[in-house]
């Protein structure tokens, strides 16, 4: 849904403008330890936040004061603003918003993580094959990928989901996952192409090591790092995406609570019921910030080139 945060080091771009090889005369010792400390702290607090969110999702039945789908009192408790009894208010069906949000965390998080897992797997496999085969097969596979990337994902998802709706959760995960692997493929393929040029892979091929073994032993371990980073950043995106789809009423099926579907249920009257719009939004933002911070910190931590402060060397 978002322009890509560059996942790998700027090496790819540098290679593109090979003319601009940079030779710095200055020792770039700058603030490496300070930066490292900052990365480490970002890594830890975002990880802690993610863990906390997962814990909250797991413990939803214990933590939630009410059942998420229970219509408490459709007359007296409809669209109640936040109060002591209902800290986050109630929705138009008199359901407790806090309870719905706690249970919604389960759906939103699990849909996002599973969809990303699927996307990362498919994307890695496709990229590996394309990069390894090379030549014409690679060219064809890449053009196909271009076409997939050219279709606006949201439009495609909305079209498919709307025409198939209502879909069960598993299909939602499948559809989101299967439309999300294109960029991972690109990344993996680029990485494969660079790994394939390294001596040990060339040597292994020269020795007649079978292809699958080369892929498994030599190439896959090298591409996993960027995939891990891309996947982490992808979770945030998918949470936003799922929320958007559910907001349109074609995501998680009613009455299942997800952070997006809470909007859908309240979407006719936000002027009066601001809490229904505000709290799920904040929950999404906090979660996505946590995943994006974790992904970015992971990239910085795993990519020593960037430690000098973004200087290409």
């Amino acid at each position, binding site marked *: 849904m978002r322009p890509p945060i560059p996942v790998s080091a700027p090496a790819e771009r540098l290679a593109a*403008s090979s*003319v*601009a*090889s*940079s*030779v710095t*005369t*200055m*020792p770039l*010792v*700058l*603030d*490496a*330890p300070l930066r490292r400390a900052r990365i480490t702290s970002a890594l830890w607090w975002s990880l802690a936040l993610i863990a906390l969110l997962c814990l909250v999702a797991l413990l939803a039945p214990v933590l939630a004061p009410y059942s998420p789908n229970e219509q408490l009192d459709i007359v007296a408790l409809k669209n109640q603003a936040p109060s002591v009894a209902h800290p986050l208010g109630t929705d138009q069906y008199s359901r407790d918003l806090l309870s719905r949000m706690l249970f919604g965390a389960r759906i939103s998080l699990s849909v996002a993580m599973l969809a990303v897992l699927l996307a990362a797997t498919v994307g890695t496999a496709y990229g590996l094959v394309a990069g390894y085969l090379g030549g014409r097969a690679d060219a064809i596979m890449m053009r196909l990928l271009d076409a997939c990337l050219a279709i606006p994902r949201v439009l495609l998802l909305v079209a498919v989901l709307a025409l198939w709706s209502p879909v069960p959760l598993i299909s939602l995960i499948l559809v989101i996952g299967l439309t999300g692997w294109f960029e991972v493929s690109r990344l993996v393929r680029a990485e494969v192409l660079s790994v394939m040029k390294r001596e040990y892979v060339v040597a292994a091929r020269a020795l007649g090591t079978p292809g699958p073994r080369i892929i498994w032993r030599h190439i896959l371990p090298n591409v996993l790092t960027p995939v891990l980073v891309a996947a982490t950043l992808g979770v945030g995106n998918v949470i936003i995406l799922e929320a958007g789809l559910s907001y349109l009423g074609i995501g998680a099926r009613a009455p299942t609570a997800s952070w997006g579907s809470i909007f859908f249920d309240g979407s006719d009257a936000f002027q009066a019921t601001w809490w229904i719009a505000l709290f799920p939004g904040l929950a999404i933002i906090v979660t996505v910030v946590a995943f994006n911070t974790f992904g970015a910190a992971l990239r910085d931590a795993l990519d020593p080139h960037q430690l000098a402060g973004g200087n290409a060397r």
Partner: protein
Amino acid sequence: MADPLLQIENLRTFFYGDGTVSRAVDGVTFSIGAGETIGLVGESGCGKSVTALSVLRLVRPPGRIEEGSRILFEGRDLATLDEKGLRAVRGARIAMVFQEPMTALNPVFTIGEQIAEVVRIHGKASRREAWDRAVEMLQIVGIPGPAERAREYPHQLSGGMRQRVVIAMALVMNPALVIADEPTTALDVTIQAQIIELLQQLQSRYQTSILLITHDLGVVAETVSRVIVMYGGEIVEEAPVKALFAEPHHPYTEGLLAAMPRLGQARERLRTIPGTVPPPTRWPSGCRFHDRCPYAWERCTVDHPPLYQIGSAHVSRCHLAEEPARREHPHEPFVMQQPQRSGRS
């Protein structure tokens, strides 16, 4: 040389980071007379490039020129001059030629634009005049078809051509001093000779002073009148070029000369200086060269040598000046004797 053009006194340029200080240039003093060409020689990491950048205050943070450093040029101290005054000197009175002609030119502007820009910054020339001057300058540095070439981009030129462009850019304002930092290192040998010849021609034509920075003593021998050898952020020897080649005094200079291929010595194996330049965060105590020196004795490990006067206009930072007899008994340098020494990271 009564009145030097550039006089550097106690130049110290340090880099800060990691809680450590890199003393890249540590108390350098020398001067250049008007119209003089001098060479600044040393291995990479000895501080010669940082010295060059310091003259125009082009050292970027975390590097800093320390207080007490003086860079006197045409009656002003460049070390403390304000930004505006400094900009008026850069490119106009002192110009630089950098090592990598591939990267020293901006890839998105034509070479004509880049030369004309200097004219536009410093002269009150119109766009047209500046362009004409650029073309003229390209002609002077020996680029064929300068009017057409001026419209081309750096990537369309060969390395040698690019270095000619960089030189044209440096000389277009007819500066008093050109600092050439390894101007030939990135070029093929035949092109190297052409560029050196070009620099010499231009030097005699415009009476420009040149500070030639290089690790290649061969380049120095045929070009300059005086040589400064740097090691460990300091000047270790300074002498007229003939004296330096005939009677090198500092063991480091000796090592550099021995490592230089010469005609008539083809059969003898080239010697190399053992070890490498230590990191500028931890210069060795005493003489900074002592761990690589074949003559070093106890005194060298504790007593930092001053610059001893060896002959007329010949100085050397070596205690051998006081105990010349020790030169008769070379030994294995300390770095070779204690290979496990973990001084460096």
